[in-house]
């Protein structure tokens, strides 16, 4: 097989078949894909949840993951945050002509690994090759269907609920910034990219009264909390010091003038939990990530606002992020 992707590998002919057989099917073939039909018939779901997401990222390979892992984890996490177990995925590639086949295989392997963690299957897919310089290496689109085990929804959040976070924040955003801009650190930052279904499944099994969950991806923790505050006309009071940020991430933020609250996470979620279950929730979250913590409570003091409380007794609002994230001038 050729070492780089050619336009003919997306033409539906022999070369296309070769790419699918030798790389994609080799890793992720299953009874659904084997049928090799235009579409896949799936058995009925009791309570289906459906999501879709497209993934473009530079660099494609980063410390802690790659675009393949990110795509599967990202789509499955969207389901997990709704209390749904991920089951079936579509997988669609748009690949730039000249892309390295070995790199493509590495991405497919990552996809397989992440599918196994979620016990999910790819049941339909597509591959397109576009001329050089008309896309940035590779794009992946995934749609996913899951079965809802428990209903989490922001509409359930009420005054008195406790807000938890499943780990330290901003690692994905900071690691991508650092690698994109060639900022070298003594301790490299690893993205938090991972699938969240296993920890959510535990929380459900232990019958923790979760009101709502949201993975803090683009826009970071600031976006999640602000969206909830606005949707429910409530105030989220957060103890700034309880939100853990690694020294390396804080370093990047200091250099570039960013707030960790607005940087992306790809395996960290915020949860609003009934106050009586908050300790149980924390213990479970800590089994998966020691940096999990209780960060605040829901009140009605400043409706639609996120209030940050400092360790020295001052308070300020944490705003919804907006615009491009740009480094400071001075």
């Amino acid at each position, binding site marked *: 097989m050729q070492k780089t992707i050619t336009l003919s590998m997306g033409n539906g002919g022999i070369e296309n078949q070769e790419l699918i057989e030798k790389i994609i099917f080799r890793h992720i073939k299953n009874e659904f894909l084997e049928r090799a039909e235009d579409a896949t018939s799936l058995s009925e779901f009791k309570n289906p949840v459906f999501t879709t997401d497209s993934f473009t990222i530079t660099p494609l390979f980063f410390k802690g993951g790659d675009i393949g892992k990110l795509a599967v984890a990202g789509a499955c996490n969207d389901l997990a945050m709704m209390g749904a177990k991920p089951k079936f995925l579509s997988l669609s590639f748009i690949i730039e002509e000249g892309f390295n086949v070995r790199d493509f295989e590495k991405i497919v392997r990552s996809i397989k690994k992440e599918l196994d963690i979620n016990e999910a299957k790819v049941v339909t897919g597509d591959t397109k090759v576009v001329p050089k310089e008309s896309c940035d290496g590779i794009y992946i689109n995934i749609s996913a269907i899951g079965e809802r085990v428990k209903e989490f929804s922001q509409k359930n959040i009420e005054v008195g609920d406790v807000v938890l976070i499943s780990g330290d924040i901003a690692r994905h955003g900071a690691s991508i910034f650092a690698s994109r801009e060639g900022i070298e650190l003594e301790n490299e930052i690893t993205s938090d990219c991972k699938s969240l279904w296993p920890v959510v499944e535990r929380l459900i099994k232990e019958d923790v009264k979760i009101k709502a969950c949201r993975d803090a991806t683009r826009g970071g923790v600031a976006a999640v909390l602000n969206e909830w505050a606005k949707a429910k006309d409530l105030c989220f009071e957060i103890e700034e010091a309880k939100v853990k940020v690694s020294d390396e991430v804080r370093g990047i933020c200091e250099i570039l003038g960013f707030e960790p609250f607005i940087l992306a996470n790809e395996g960290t979620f915020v949860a609003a939990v009934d106050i009586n279950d908050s300790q149980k929730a924390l213990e479970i979250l800590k089994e998966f990530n020691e940096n999990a913590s209780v960060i605040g409570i829901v009140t009605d003091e400043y409706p639609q606002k996120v209030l940050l409380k400092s360790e020295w007794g001052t308070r300020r609002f944490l705003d919804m992020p907006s615009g491009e994230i740009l*480094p400071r001038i*001075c």
Partner: protein
Amino acid sequence: MVLKDLYDRFRDPKAIQALSKEIEKEAEKLDRTINIMEVCGGHTHTIMKYGLLQLMPKNINFIHGPGCPVCIMPKERIDHAYILAMREDVILCTLGDMIKVPGSKGSLQDARSNGGDVRFVYSPLDVLKIAKENPDKKVIFFAIGFETTTPMTAALLENAIKQNIKNMLFHINHVTVPEVMKELIDSRDEHVDSYNNQIDAFLGPSHVSVIAGSKIYEQFPSQYNRPVVVSGFEPVDVMEGVLMMVSQFVEGRCEVEIQYKRSVSKEGNLKAQELIENYFEKRELFKWRGLGNIPKSAWKLKDEFGEFDAEKIYELPKEEIEDHKLCICGDILRGIAKPTECQVFGTACTPQKPLGSCMVSSEGACAAYYKYGNLL
């Protein structure tokens, strides 16, 4: 030592609270309210972000100053950047959030979406790489900033000359702090008292003095009877700077003091100053947005480096452009109005759709008020 050690001590809750108590104790001895202008937007943001105003006694009042390189850029110069960026043979490079500021034709972000090649760089020296990689393009560095960033632009030019790079040009917008401070004190309106400054003292930005030294402020105590404390940007720095300031008033002193002793000296960085002197000379006048023309307040390239000067090489419009008539950024930059006094604040003017650059810049006073809320 890791980066963390550089700031952790300066955000220590106990130290911040202890300084707050000290300031309160000292301020009780004052017989009036003192108005401290923090010249730099970086200080404004520290005060707002860390909620330091909530720790200040009532007789300490902060006035936000004109020290944000993005806020003070007049529309006509942003238009220059836009016009240059839209040329097919040009790659326009600039720092950080300059690309969000609206000129009369739009922002550089708009230029980019209209097909212009606009890139932001973390350091001016990154422009060298872009120029080398694009020999068939003119790579123009739209240079902005106060004393802090000026030496880096000079270093970029020095490197371009040494490496014989022929496709790099500069549009220089570097400004200086003491001249605008003088302007704020000197400008008087005989008919409208409220238009006259209320500034009793200045909190000077540490990064400016790392380069230029504390000596640039010596005229303020001696000629204008205004003390200056050069202070760092961490919460403990600002609190300590304020305490030093209050002590001067209580003790009846009026002088330049350095709080940020860990990097600032009276003389500053002589090598950086020499670099600036080698390549730049003062403009007779430079228009500051909302403040008007201020003599000797900005740099330009010396005539001998005219081949690198985008303002000389390209035909750029000279006429001045008025700001939006509802926008009171000028009064805000002058320290005679607070952002919330502007009738379009948070309504017609937001970070997503700004009328004025004080709302766009990450160092702008309006952006700080909008972002950190009205708990102050």
